[in-house]
């Protein structure tokens, strides 16, 4: 049986080595989150770090008053981003209400999430750290070009994160 990368100690150690849970990361990545939301025209964008049992919000762009902004994370079983840790690929949900994995997700049933697109941030050591993602409250299609925009922003986020390691 292939072990679940979500619980891989080496991946979690990489997150610690990169000091990704520090509040210092927010100002470094905030601008990347802002660009993702603006360029895809969606209200919310996150730079997520996927931990073993929770998603940690490293940076967020979105309206004031989101509970996520206060908790800076949520349980991993609600996480759209966890899929990319397992597949190492982009993950897109165009209609969350009909999506087999997410139609009963509380972020959908309670908070109104309807669409999601995320691209993994993969460190130079090969570990998936989390995603650059956008979230919307209406169903929406995503083009290949838009996923490429997110891919570019994910690469930029990793570059900024790893620049801190080499300092």
């Amino acid at each position, binding site marked *: 049986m292939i072990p679940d990368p979500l619980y891989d100690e080496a991946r*979690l150690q990489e997150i610690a080595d990169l000091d990704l849970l520090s509040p210092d990361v927010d100002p470094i990545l905030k601008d990347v989150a802002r660009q993702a939301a603006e360029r895809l025209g969606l209200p919310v964008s996150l730079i997520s770090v996927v931990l073993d049992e*929770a998603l940690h919000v490293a940076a967020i762009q979105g309206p004031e008053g989101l*509970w996520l902004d206060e*908790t*800076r994370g949520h349980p991993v079983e609600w996480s759209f981003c966890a899929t990319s840790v397992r597949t190492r690929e982009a993950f897109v949900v165009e209609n969350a209400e009909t999506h087999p994995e997410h139609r009963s997700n509380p972020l959908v*049933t309670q908070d109104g999430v309807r669409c999601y697109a995320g691209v993994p941030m993969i460190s130079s050591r090969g570990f998936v750290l989390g995603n650059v993602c956008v979230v919307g409250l209406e169903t929406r299609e995503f083009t290949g070009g838009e996923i490429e925009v997110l891919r570019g922003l994910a690469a930029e986020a990793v570059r900024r994160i790893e620049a801190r390691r080499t300092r």
Partner: protein
Amino acid sequence: MLSPPPGTARLPGYDLREPSEDDARASLQRVFGPDRGAELWARACREAGLLPGQVRTTAQLDRAVKALSSQGGSASVVARSMEIRLRTFARLAATAERQGR
């Protein structure tokens, strides 16, 4: 007065159970295996002035998680997961209470 034991309350709508000591131990064992997981938890409890298996309140669990976090490395990442789960439960429970749910 002690707060109710963690792990019993459940949030309607979100189907989220209040985190308990058992959840913390299970998380550590999933990542580090049974022996190292138990050892890390015992150390966290000791540093928090608690006995493993007798972390009964949310405040005590919070203290043990903080002690785990101070161990650094991947243990601190697991601790952050627990902290997020505790914080999410508290935040959403407070909203539910305000709304009378």
